[in-house]
């Protein structure tokens, strides 16, 4: 496998703990979220545009705190209420004790019985995908104070309204994740490359390259991943077929622009 093909793999967009890059802003959010989890809150809202790093952050928190603080993660929304309730039950009591006729009301009774005795934190990723009826029930479960929810959802006007309607009175902490700055973009690319021991590739990116990448991606980490993947795909082609057209010491803006063309950020 060529060097540039390996580099492509680094920038495949996936939510893994090792994908978490300790940027200044992400470290700040990470600490803020951990601090919020320690507080006796009912709900914590984590929101931001797609690609701002919510899922990676939630995964990182889960990975780091699951053993110490009874933190659980539901990364994919469970649409069926019965399944969802059973999953929550498994977080507070042994899975083997789940009653067959476990309903929402019965679960609320169980939670009220466990009040002051049990505290768990459940991280709900992609919470915007839960039906509004389910969100209402989540809100009522949080009132028992047995389960604290960290709700991660995309920020749109509509979803903002949902968040306000369902959680306004209960949310004590709100964390908004935003796209990265130019500095974040530079750190993200370089740290990711250095993390995989591609020091010489990390050095090939000039300020001009970073500015261009930031302009096309607006500092959105998912878009940066896509652009970098495409860039190394182009480099891989030239390295294999026309090696004289690429330099080993610097990245040409031309290839960044070609990547942007391919991804539709710009048009000929």
């Amino acid at each position: 496998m060529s060097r540039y093909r390996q580099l492509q793999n680094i920038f495949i967009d996936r939510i893994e703990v090792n994908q978490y890059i300790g940027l200044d802003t992400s470290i700040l959010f990470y600490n803020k979220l951990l601090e919020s989890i320690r507080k006796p809150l009912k709900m914590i809202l984590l929101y931001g545009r797609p690609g701002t790093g919510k899922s990676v952050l939630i995964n990182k928190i889960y990975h780091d705190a699951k053993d110490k603080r009874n933190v659980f993660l539901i990364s994919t929304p469970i649409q069926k209420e019965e399944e969802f309730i059973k999953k929550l039950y498994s977080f507070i009591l042994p899975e083997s004790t789940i009653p067959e006729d476990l309903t929402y009301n019965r679960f609320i009774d169980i939670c009220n019985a466990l009040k002051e005795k049990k505290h768990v934190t459940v991280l709900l990723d992609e919470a915007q995908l839960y039906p509004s009826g389910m969100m209402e029930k989540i809100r009522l479960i949080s009132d028992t104070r047995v389960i604290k929810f960290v709700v991660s959802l995309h920020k749109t006007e509509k979803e903002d309204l949902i968040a306000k309607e369902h959680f306004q009175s209960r949310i004590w902490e709100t964390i908004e994740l935003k796209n990265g700055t130019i500095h974040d973009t530079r750190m993200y690319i370089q740290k990711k490359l250095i993390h995989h021991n591609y020091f010489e590739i990390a050095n090939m990116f000039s300020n001009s390259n970073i500015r261009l990448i930031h302009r096309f991606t607006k500092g959105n980490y998912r878009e940066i991943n896509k652009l970098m993947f495409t860039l190394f795909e182009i480099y891989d082609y030239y390295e294999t077929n026309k090696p004289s057209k690429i330099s080993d010491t610097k990245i040409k803006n031309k290839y960044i622009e070609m990547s942007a063309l391919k991804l539709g950020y710009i048009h000929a």
Partner: protein
Amino acid sequence: MHEIEKLEKEWRRYKSKKRAPLLIALSVAIFFAGGYLALQNSGTTFDALDVKNEYLKKSGDEAPKNHSAKDIYESERDSLNESEEKTENITRAESTIVQKEKPSSADTPKQPLVPEESEKSVVLNPDTDFLDSISSTKSNNKPQKHAKAAESVKHERVSKKAAPVKKSDDTQNGEKMAANEDENVKVSTLQIKSSKTNNTLEYLIGRFNEKRDPKLASYIAQSYYKKGNYNEAARWSVIANSLDPSSEESWLTFARSKAKMGQKEDAIKALKVYLNQYSSKKVKSFLHSLEAGR
């Protein structure tokens, strides 16, 4: 074709599209800058004066081709209108005298007057005759001195004889001039010329004071230069130059005047200063001639 190569082609299109407005803007800017410079050059050079000079050199009666020169001419004509109205007979006599005095000038291709413009040409005659006399001083100082001497002698004669001429009205003058011998006629002609020339320069200076036109200042400088008044010529060149420093003619007239006054170093210095900022074959050649003759 591979997808990446297609992408590269697409990128070339993207770049050319992106550069197009820049190129257009650049070319438009260059066009306007060129136009502006051209306008500025046309405004600062003395094309009009060049035409006038040529006109002065070739013939004294030819109508000016340039607007500003024409303006000056018309203004001169206006200033002279009064005397024209009065001295129709004199001007007729004068034109015949001019023909007698300068048979060679009649040989110039533009000299013959168009019948419809006879009045205008008659009007212009006196001034151009003056300028001819100036041009003769430029080409050769001796004749000028001679002419001046002759003029002073004649002037004395006139002052002795002139009492009836000065006092008499225009018709009387005309009759006398028609009847007199050649010498007498020449004396009366010189009288008329000198008075009109002074009026013209005065008028031009007055006009300059109103309009502050650098071309006019330069024209006055040249007139003084041709008249042999190099000090005034240099002074008016400085005035013209202060209004339009890029004017080649003002620098040239200044240098020529300085050279005539024996201040060649100043002339050379001025021409070098001009050449540091502008390029001019005319100035260069004059500078070379000055340096060669130093």
